[in-house]
């Protein structure tokens, strides 16, 4: 038997693929595994070499098990709540048609792109003792934390589940009805199982986000509630206890890996079903039977609108009535010259850093997606791709604090001394954003009919041109969305940035964190104004790109796929 001949161009293509894969592997190796490994190593290596006694020591502390348990159950509860509130929303916004539906879809998406610091600030303002709902006595309570988590992740559920729901073949339900099944029975036996993969994918993702949420916990949880993430922060910055922090990081790494493994499984099923769908759904008008869904969704909308509104209103309140004093204060250094730079300068830092981070994340994300979208027949390359797919998701769940601290100890001395280059912050932000970029582009590339590429090749297009004329146009919309999203994520990144930003170059979220940690009405007012500005920039960028990208190419397959594969298709 003759071995299959690849030929020169086959080898060239393989070389190109390996190169495309090498860039992300090197980048992740240097900027993720090396720093995180260094930090963990520091915790595990004592003065006499490798020393595991510390691990058992930490794990045996009652404080540790209490924190671990709290981390898991608050995240689980948040995920269940988000799904319970999100499913009726997904139904209304993707299965029914009514005036203003597109606007509503846009509104519910806003919270997800908001920086966590801003969200925490908004909820704190809402429930503060002197706040609009101060009388509810929820300031610093678990309820506030859960509400903030649902607020942030409502869109994940609505878009992931809704995207699937919109493309479910309605005729299956009609078939069940014609066989004599009633409404609830149709929903329970036909619709719900079909939505199963999407629901579990959304739930897992929300769990992951909430289990590692930092800004919310730090600002709303105070000293009363600690998760692994805030505890790592506390141990490293306040206790300077690196070994304990390292053990906690390992524990979180294990937790995240398990969740990601499960998520990868679920995702494969979702992507498989993605192909079966044609846009043969057709939303229908609202009926009285939809009333419960309308009520739940209205409540969710209140949850979305009220905190943002409170933030906005409070930012316009001054000591003597209404005015823009708080915004004017952004030009100052705060009460008692608390800050080294003004709010506007911090915004400039944020934007320039986020632009760099988005560019990095998109470049690495594209290279990665090109490799991960391949479906080789041979077993070994398939395994390698499956492995890479999972590995590059890790930064999603690894403590941003761990990454930030790892950067500090690993990349501030030769051979990789980047401390003074000012690149550490954008690189750390890109690291957090890259998995999201991949998750948005990859489903589109995978759903694209491979025969389009074959048709192009048969017509004489060399591989590079096939990519430019087929892959790139197909993923253009998803790519635009991913770029905007990466920018928003980088802009709002708080965990790693709070470690890495040099004191004279803080980003806006870091500045907000500093402002609200100090007393003083002027400082609080300034934080509110900064929060509004930050939220505005995020929302405007994401919307502008979404509008721009969807304007040109409506009603195409790629558009649908991008919608499904949008930020929720994890």
């Amino acid at each position: 038997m003759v071995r299959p001949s690849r030929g020169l161009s086959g080898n060239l293509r393989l070389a190109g693929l390996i190169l495309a894969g090498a860039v992300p592997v090197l980048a992740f190796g240097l900027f993720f595994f090396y720093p995180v490994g260094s930090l963990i190593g520091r915790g595990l290596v004592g003065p006499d070499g490798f020393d595991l006694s510390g691990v058992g020591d930490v794990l045996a502390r009652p404080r540790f098990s209490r924190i671990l348990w709290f981390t898991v159950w608050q995240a689980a509860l948040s995920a269940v709540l988000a799904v319970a509130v999100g499913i009726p929303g997904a139904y209304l916004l993707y299965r029914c048609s009514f005036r203003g539906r597109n606007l509503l879809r846009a509104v519910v998406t806003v919270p997800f792109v908001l920086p966590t610091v801003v969200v925490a600030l908004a909820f704190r303002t809402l429930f503060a003792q002197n706040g609009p709902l101060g009388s509810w006595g929820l300031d610093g309570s678990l309820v506030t934390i859960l509400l903030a988590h649902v607020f942030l992740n409502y869109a994940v559920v609505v878009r992931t589940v809704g995207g699937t729901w919109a493309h479910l073949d309605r005729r299956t339900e009609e078939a069940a009805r014609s066989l004599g099944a009633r409404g609830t029975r149709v929903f329970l036996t036909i619709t719900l199982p079909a939505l199963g993969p999407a629901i579990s994918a959304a739930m897992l993702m929300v769990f992951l986000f909430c289990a590692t949420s930092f800004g919310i916990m730090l600002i709303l949880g105070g000293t009363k509630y600690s998760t692994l993430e805030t505890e790592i922060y506390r141990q490293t910055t306040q206790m300077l206890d690196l070994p304990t922090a390292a053990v906690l990081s390992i524990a979180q790494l294990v937790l995240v890996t398990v969740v990601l493994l499960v998520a990868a499984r679920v995702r494969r099923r979702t992507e498989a079903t993605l192909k079966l769908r044609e846009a043969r759904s057709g939303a229908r008008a609202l009926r009285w039977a939809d009333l419960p869904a309308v009520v739940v969704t209205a409540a969710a909308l209140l949850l979305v609108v009220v905190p943002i509104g409170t933030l906005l209103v409070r930012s316009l309140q001054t000591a003597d009535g209404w005015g823009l004093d708080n915004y004017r204060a952004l030009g100052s250094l705060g009460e008692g010259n608390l800050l080294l730079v003004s709010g506007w300068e911090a915004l400039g830092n944020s934007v320039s850093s986020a632009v760099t981070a988005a560019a990095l994340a998109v470049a690495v994300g594209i290279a990665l997606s090109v490799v991960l979208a391949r479906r080789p027949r041979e077993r070994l390359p398939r395994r390698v791709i499956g492995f890479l797919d999972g590995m590059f998701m890790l930064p999603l769940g690894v403590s941003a604090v761990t990454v930030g601290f790892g950067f500090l100890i690993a990349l501030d001395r030769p051979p990789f001394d980047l401390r003074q280059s000012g690149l550490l912050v954008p690189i750390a932000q890109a690291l957090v954003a890259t998995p999201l970029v991949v998750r948005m582009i990859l489903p589109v590339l995978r759903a694209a009919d491979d025969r389009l590429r074959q048709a192009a090749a048969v017509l004489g297009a060399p591989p590079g041109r096939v990519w430019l004329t087929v892959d790139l146009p197909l993923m253009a919309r998803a790519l635009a969305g991913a770029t905007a999203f990466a920018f928003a994520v980088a802009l709002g990144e708080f965990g790693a940035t709070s470690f890495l930003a040099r004191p004279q170059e803080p980003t806006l979220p870091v500045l907000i964190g500093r402002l609200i940690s100090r007393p003083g009405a002027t400082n609080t007012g300034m934080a509110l104004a900064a929060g509004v500005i930050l939220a505005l920039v995020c929302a405007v960028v994401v919307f502008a790109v979404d509008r721009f990208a969807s304007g040109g190419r409506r009603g195409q397959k790629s558009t649908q796929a991008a919608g499904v594969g949008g930020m929720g298709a994890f």
Partner: protein
Amino acid sequence: MDLQLSDVSVAYGTTTAVDRVSLRVRPGQVLALLGPSGCGKSTLLRAVAGLEPLRGGRITFGEQDLAGVPVHRRGFGLMFQDGVLFPHRTVAGNIAYGLTADRATRAAWRRVDGGVSARVEELLELVGLSGYTDRKVASLSGGEQQRVALARALAPAPRLLLLDEPLAALDAGLRDRLLMDLRGILAATGTTAVFVTHDQAEAFAVADTVAVMEAGQVRQHGPLREVWDHPVSEWVARFIGYSSVIDDPAGGRLALRPSALRLDPRGEISGIVTGVSPRPESLLITVTVDGWGVVSAVGPSEAGAAVGDRVRLRLDRSHAVVLAG
């Protein structure tokens, strides 16, 4: 230039999809690869296009061995079952794709009279879609999409056109019309082509030669007429449209077209009706005949045969062939 396949094998993992196939297509001829689904005919076509690596054997075009020639340098055209048009390009953008696929091609077509756009118009006219230039492909019907796909494949004047069940996704009336157009276009352009189909009527409508495939192997290969008149085996006979195979009373095996057995009260054969299927102009029935088993027969539409009736049939040898071997 001839397309020549010698002992070509293609495998997926441990499954052999195409098993030592040898074929030849002469310039200007159309070869139909005919076989049931899963017989490896599409895989073979994709191997010729360069989309599947060979496990063994050789494919040559003229003097050129195609091993190591990448897909985009083969100069072949390929048409898929369902068009696979580029959704983000207009009709003209799709057809022009192969004319602008790389710098050299683009430059060459620019020098031609009227350039790329004239060539696009020429092809639109050829496939009967003049005026569709700036239409979006999503707005086309299935038949129109296939016409655009054909125009796209023909535009760069390929050395060889590969058609992978190009009409299978269309409904019957449209299929017949497109089949006739396709035959005319292939003849008018003198295109050498390989046409994959599972439908013997399609194969007979467009091809000069036919290769009947089963389980990855070519069972019979030859001019259309010859294969039709002399199927080499019972399987081939049944696949290309013979309805029954019986032991010839005169010795040997006989393959019958449905019209070889006719209802006739004075016929020499007797059997019991097991099924009745009225057609617009005739009555198709199945009959159990002692010694032959179940065979198909036809009668006039007004014949009142019902299941269970005993009927008499007459054998018309001009509608039957003796199987070799």
